[in-house]
């Protein structure tokens, strides 16, 4: 079946074994990612996001298309620009907002920041900041699938920068040798913080690195959500069939800075605008839906409206959540003991911070 084959009803059939409902669903996850991040920008500017904010603007197709190729029982480990993959896996906007806003009822109870959240039941594991570290961890999670003869698959995202770490190398090599059912996605967005890919590797492509591990390497257009879905689906099928690791390089572009504070002074003039104008994954997909797949514009507008409503409602809810109680900080470092002791000078003190202690006052004390 080709992409434009007609279904019996007269509307074009969806490609790659997808249904037309699923085509619209892909659009919804991409739109939700973008709308939710735009809301986070507002909250960040209102200082309600108490830490840094990381965007995936222009990369939504990578996260959504790949995660959509997994089954419910599969587990993925996102990177900082894979919010979309977590939404696909069942993370909700209110959970993301509470996490960013450091609320007591956030998924990490205010212990971790941004999208460092996870839920094994829903199939996503929270990342840590040390790039590459999730590759060995996902090697272990998929090793457990293999050891228990479970037909489950793991997917781990890294960026172009993380491929330079030892953990990436050790993890993918370990998984390849053990034939773990693992898909490794290198999201090549051109920059690691300010460092361009040319200063990250001398390799011609990240997909080429697969040869060294004895696994297939594939390069695909990450801003084409359907193509991303297709190549990931193939890799997932290989993994589930016992054929081990696949390395996928998704070509995309990071249109925002490393984090919201980053002014991107290192980006050549016009580059961002060029990508925004000609290669935006949402624009491209919306166009494909309305032209190739004959969805009426109203169908997409309805999704947009529904997403907006969902994010509004989630914001209202998240704003009402309380901040964590200070002494909660001592709970749950170990299974046993369950609580760490309070230091002697904090005994009976409710909060460590006096009202007049302000971070912006640091270094300015003059007696």
């Amino acid at each position: 079946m080709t992409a434009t084959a007609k279904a019996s009803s007269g509307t074009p059939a969806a490609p790659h074994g997808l249904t037309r409902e699923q085509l619209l669903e892909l659009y919804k996850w991409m739109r939700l990612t973008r709308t939710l991040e735009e809301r986070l920008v507002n909250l960040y500017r209102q200082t309600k996001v108490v830490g840094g904010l990381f965007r995936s603007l222009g990369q939504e197709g990578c996260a959504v298309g790949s995660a959509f190729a997994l089954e419910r029982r599969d587990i993925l480990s996102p990177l900082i620009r894979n919010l979309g993959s977590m939404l696909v896996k069942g993370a909700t906007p209110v959970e993301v907002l509470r996490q960013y806003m450091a609320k007591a009822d956030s998924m990490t109870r205010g212990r971790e920041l941004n999208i460092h959240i996870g839920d094994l039941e829903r199939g996503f594991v929270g990342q840590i900041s040390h790039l590459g570290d999730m590759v060995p961890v996902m090697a272990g999670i998929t090793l457990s699938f293999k050891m228990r003869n479970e037909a489950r698959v793991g997917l781990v995202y890294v960026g172009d920068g993380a491929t330079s770490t030892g953990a990436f190398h050790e993890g993918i090599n370990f998984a390849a040798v053990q034939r773990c059912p693992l898909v490794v996605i290198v999201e090549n967005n051109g920059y690691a913080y300010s460092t361009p890919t040319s200063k990250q590797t001398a390799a011609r492509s990240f997909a080429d690195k697969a040869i060294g591990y004895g696994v297939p390497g594939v390069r695909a257009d990450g801003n084409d959500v359907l193509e991303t879905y297709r190549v990931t689906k193939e890799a997932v099928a290989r993994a589930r069939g016992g054929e081990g690791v696949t390395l996928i390089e998704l070509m995309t572009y990071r249109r925002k800075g490393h984090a919201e504070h980053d002014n991107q002074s290192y980006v050549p003039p016009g580059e961002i605008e060029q990508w925004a104008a000609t290669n935006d994954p949402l624009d491209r997909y919306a166009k494909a839906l309305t032209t190739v797949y004959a969805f009426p514009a109203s169908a997409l507008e309805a999704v947009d409206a529904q997403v907006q409503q969902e994010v509004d409602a989630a914001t209202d809810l998240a704003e009402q959540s309380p901040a964590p109680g200070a002494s909660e900080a001592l709970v749950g470092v170990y299974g046993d003991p369950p609580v760490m002791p309070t230091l002697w000078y904090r005994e009976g003190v409710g909060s460590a911070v006096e009202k007049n202690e302000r971070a912006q006052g640091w270094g300015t004390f003059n007696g």
Partner: protein
Amino acid sequence: MAEVTYLEAIREGLFEEMERDPNVFCLGEDIGAYGGAFKVTDGLMQKFGERRVIDTPISEAAIVGAAAGAAHMGLRPVCEMQFIDFISCAYDMLTNYVATARYRAFLPTPMVVRGPSGGYVRGGPFHSQNPEAAFLHTPGLKIVYPATARDAKGLIKAAIRDDDCVLFFEHKYLYRRIKDTMPAGDHVVPIGKARVAREGRDLSIITYAATVWKALEAAEQLEKEEGLSVEVIDLRSLLPMDDEAIVATVKKTNRVLVVHEDTVTGGIAGEITARINELCFEWLDAPVRRVGAHDVPLPYAPQLEDFVLPQTSDIVRAARWISAY
């Protein structure tokens, strides 16, 4: 009952736990077909198969990282570092990923990282280390370092059953030099409890691992030569540390020497001294003093290694100083 060596005791513990719990598995370099560089895992692959005794690439970060992932899924991995010196290659994975997993993500990570540690064996700078202090500073990890064959077995079993990551340091000097009978039945030594290795009234030596035996030797000599009654505390667990046992011995003898094989600066003896200062300063009749290795990388030549590492005569000398204070 037959005596088993410290090394065999660890192996017995591994066998028993793998037999008891199908979720327990081992991974590391050369541990399967070859049975491990020191043969600690000898026979494990024959008994439990390649699936549960995994020979890995030379990738300490991947060994520990993969163990963490498997542990999240309900397995109980036991990682071998071929020499504990190589645990530094997995330092990031242990301190940043594993140690924080429960706290930040509510992911239990029941796993053990074990390996041959310590000097007195002419192993040079990279096959003799005692890196325990590097991990004492990491909330989320547990650390044990047995000195006896019984504790080696009882603590490896406790470590495997613990719901958090336990670093299990094995002293390679003790592997085949000490032996003991094993208690019958399911012998588990609780983590976090010290052991009184020798009762005494006049002075306490707080120590762990191989220097427990040097402290006992010194105590014997001090008793014979000056009639001093020396108590020796074998900490066994370093994290959590048995403050009660430390305070009890301070209150009993009022004079304390802290001994370890690791280098002095930044070593665990400093932490023990600080705890004594905070918990029972007024019970002291003399300053707490430390005996450890000189602050240099551990050299190879016997003349150099013996000079750098703490010896029985050093302990005797330091104990005399404290008792005369």
